[in-house]
Structure formats: structure tokens, C-alpha cells
């Protein structure tokens, strides 16, 4: 295939291969988003019709202002801002609420950017341990709060827990955790990076004070993109405007929001996100079908002798951790290509996205695959197993 320029190849893996990469499927663009990328790729393309008060979320053409209103409604929150990735949402909230030495409750499966956001604000993370099923429970969260209170003499300033985590794709007790946060009067940030945009999520129903989502993980949008939503109670703090005044020029930039550093997603990323929005609103209604597909695949996957699924079963999310130590890894031990034999076999069957060379514990994601593709995928795994003499149950 011809390159775009000399050393940049065309990326056609979504057109040519079944891609089971753990973090890519939810961010795969819709046709409308691809068209938006073609038309709005130029740098400050969203600024053509930027008029007073000169802020991204106030632009009326294209309808960015309206998008913000509708997005907040979709998320079941009062206000929302688009940000360059969920991480910038964590950062905005942590920076607003956490001061030096403050404790922040996070999950033992928290994404590293949650750690960094807390560190950046001068806080200290305190991790809630997992239960035996790799779930963060409300009870364990309450215990951790008590532990922090005992050790530091102060309550944590923020609770930040993932709806679904990135390691197992397990669902955590966010509603119960939200209740606990209310009892202790600690604000609760629900990390919906693997939820918002693929399944129905309503922040207020959950009881979240902040709801963070990722455009490139789950909203059919390019990277970086994401959102941070909140209630009117907290909006004034996290979306506070600048009070700064230049000592020489006396300049003020009153409308600009400090945590957003003014405007955020200027250009194609935002317009693509907006272009995907109607399809996203529709697709979350079909999450049940995605769950049926991953569970069908898992049933077939587990027919291969030695295969295991460390994620909770039955699956509640398409992102899943699998363990092939007892099957494909045994072949890798003596194969001249070692673990890469498995990648080769998948590649020969036009399947990509596995962690190249990994044959023990690894992750996959079936989000967005059609039933035909799911069945093809299941057959491919069983076909590889049979080829190497691994028993496959009928």
C-alpha cells in the first residue's frame, strides 16, 4: 500500500483486520467522524465563527455550545467541558480540590493518570484493595476511608474510582461507593473512561459529583479527547474563571477557565466527537448485544483446553483479560518463534491487536464487531488450537 508520505504508512488495519486491541475498539471513528476529520483537520478550524465571549464552549457555529448542553444531558450531569483525554479531567478535578498532603482514595486498579493527577496536585493516593473477585466494593472503600482518617487525622479530599477498570474490565460498586462518599461528605469522581460512550451512564443516577469520560477510548473520537462533567454544586469550583490581572498591562481574561487553560479541544478532535455523538447516543442502547457477543466469544474461547478468563464472568464488559498459559503458551515453550507463533497465526487469519508475543495473560476487546466477525474470531482461536493439537471441546 502506498504511504501518505515517505515514512508514514497508511493505517488500514480497521479496514483489513479484525482488531481486538484492548483499548482501541471504542474509539474507532464513525463515518461521520471520519468526514469531520477530512473537513476540520486544519489547526484552529473551530475558531472560524468564534465570537464574544471567545470561549470554545460558547461557539455557536458549528454548534459547539449546543453540543455541550446535550452532552451534559446525555451524561446526566449539569455541566460538562471537553478535555484532551480523561486524564485532563482527573487533573482538573484534583487540582481544584486537592491540596498538598491531602489523601485521595483511588482503586487498586486505578489508571496511572489518576496517580499522576493526584501527584500533580500535591496529594497522596490511598488505594482501596480488591476483593477476591477483583472488584472494588463500597465496604472496602468505607474501610479505607476509616483507615486514612485514623492514620492522618483527616478525611480524604476526593474519591476517584473507575466504573470499569482497564486491567480486567470488571464492574466496580460505583453506586455503593457514591453512597459511601455522601455519608462521609467526600466528593466522588467516577472514572467512566471505559463506560461513557459505549454503555448507558447517568452521573446523577450513579451519585457522582464528577463524571469523566474518554473520547478516544469509548466515544468514537480521535485522541486526545474526553470530557469532565459535574453538578452545579461543583461547577463553580472546577470550572472557575480566571481572576488574574497583569501588573503592567492590567489585562484580564475573565471568561477563561483556569483548569481548562482557556479553550481545550480546538479543531478536528472536537468536531469529530460531535459528529459521532448521534451514533454514540444510539449505540449505548445496544450495549446488551455487545455483552451477548463477548459472552458468546468467551464460551467458545473456554472450549479450548487450558484457557482461562481472570476477568469476572459472565462478562459485563467487552474488555477482557484472558489467560492462555495452559494452552497457547505451552506451544510457545518449544516453538522456534516462541510466543510470536500465536501472533503469526492470528495475523495469518487477519486478526490483530493482541499483545505481540504474549501467550500467558493478555487482554482483548470485542467491542463493535459484528456477529459474523465474532464467530470468525471464535473459530480462528479454535482453529489455531486444533492445528497445534490442543483439545477443543465440541
Amino acid at each position: 500500500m502506498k504511504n501518505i508520505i515517505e515514512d508514514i504508512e497508511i493505517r488500514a488495519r480497521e479496514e483489513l483486520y479484525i482488531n481486538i486491541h484492548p483499548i482501541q475498539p471504542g474509539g474507532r471513528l464513525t463515518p461521520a467522524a471520519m468526514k469531520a476529520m477530512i473537513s476540520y483537520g486544519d489547526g484552529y478550524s473551530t475558531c472560524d465563527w468564534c465570537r464574544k465571549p471567545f470561549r470554545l464552549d460558547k461557539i455557536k457555529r458549528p454548534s459547539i455550545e449546543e453540543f455541550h448542553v446535550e452532552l451534559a444531558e446525555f451524561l446526566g450531569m449539569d455541566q460538562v467541558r471537553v478535555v484532551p483525554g480523561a486524564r485532563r479531567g482527573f487533573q482538573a478535578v484534583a487540582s481544584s480540590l486537592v491540596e498538598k498532603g491531602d489523601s485521595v482514595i483511588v482503586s487498586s486498579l486505578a489508571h496511572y493518570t489518576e496517580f499522576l493527577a493526584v501527584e500533580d496536585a500535591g496529594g497522596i493516593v490511598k488505594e482501596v484493595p480488591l476483593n477476591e473477585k477483583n472488584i472494588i466494593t463500597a465496604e472496602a472503600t468505607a474501610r479505607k476511608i476509616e483507615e486514612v482518617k485514623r492514620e492522618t487525622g483527616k478525611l480524604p479530599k476526593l474519591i476517584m474510582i473507575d466504573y470499569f477498570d482497564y486491567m480486567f474490565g470488571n464492574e466496580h460498586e460505583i453506586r455503593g461507593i457514591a453512597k459511601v462518599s455522601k455519608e462521609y461528605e467526600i466528593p466522588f469522581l467516577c472514572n467512566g473512561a471505559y463506560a461513557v460512550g459505549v454503555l448507558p451512564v447517568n452521573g446523577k443516577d450513579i451519585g457522582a459529583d464528577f463524571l469523566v469520560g474518554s473520547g478516544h477510548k469509548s466515544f468514537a473520537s480521535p485522541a486526545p479527547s474526553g470530557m469532565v462533567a459535574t453538578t452545579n454544586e461543583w461547577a463553580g469550583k472546577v470550572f472557575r474563571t480566571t481572576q488574574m490581572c497583569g501588573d503592567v498591562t492590567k489585562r484580564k481574561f475573565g471568561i477563561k477557565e483556569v483548569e481548562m487553560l482557556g479553550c481545550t479541544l480546538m479543531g478536528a478532535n472536537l468536531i469529530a466527537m460531535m459528529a459521532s455523538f448521534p451514533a454514540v447516543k444510539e449505540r449505548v442502547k445496544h450495549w446488551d448485544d455487545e455483552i451477548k457477543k463477548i459472552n458468546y466469544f468467551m464460551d467458545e474461547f473456554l472450549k479450548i483446553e487450558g484457557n482461562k478468563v481472570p476477568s469476572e464472568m459472565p462478562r459485563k464488559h467487552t474488555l477482557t483479560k484472558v489467560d492462555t498459559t495452559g494452552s497457547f503458551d505451552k506451544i510457545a515453550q518449544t516453538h522456534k518463534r516462541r510466543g510470536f507463533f500465536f501472533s503469526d497465526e492470528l495475523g495469518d487469519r487477519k486478526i490483530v491487536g493482541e499483545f505481540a508475543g504474549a501467550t500467558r495473560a493478555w487482554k482483548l476487546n470485542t467491542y463493535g464487531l459484528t456477529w459474523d466477525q465474532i464467530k470468525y474470531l471464535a473459530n480462528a482461536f479454535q482453529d489455531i488450537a486444533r492445528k497445534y493439537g490442543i483439545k477443543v471441546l465440541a
Partner: protein
Amino acid sequence: MSEKAVQETFEALFALTDLRQIFRETKPDHKLNDEQKKKVEEILKSVRRSLGVIEEELTK
């Protein structure tokens, strides 16, 4: 060349984007059903029409 040629350029690119989507939905073997075949035919027709307009604009 006029604004029409620019408009048709986008039309063609967008139609080809719809074709890209069909490739995505039918990967990896790209076996198309009747409905998908019909859609591809419509896309090709639309692209050809756009190219025709652009060609016409060029000769004006």
C-alpha cells in the same frame, strides 16, 4: 474551476469514506451481502458523478 468543484471533491471524499466503512464492517474477508453490494454500487455512482462534475468544471 468553481465552488461546485470544491463541493464535489468533498462529496466524493465522503462517499469514499462510506466505502471505507463497508470495508470495516465486512473485514476480514470482505464478503458483501446484496444490500452491501447495492450500497457500494451507489457509492461508486456518486463518486463518478462528482468526478464528472469536477471534470466538466475543469474544461469550462
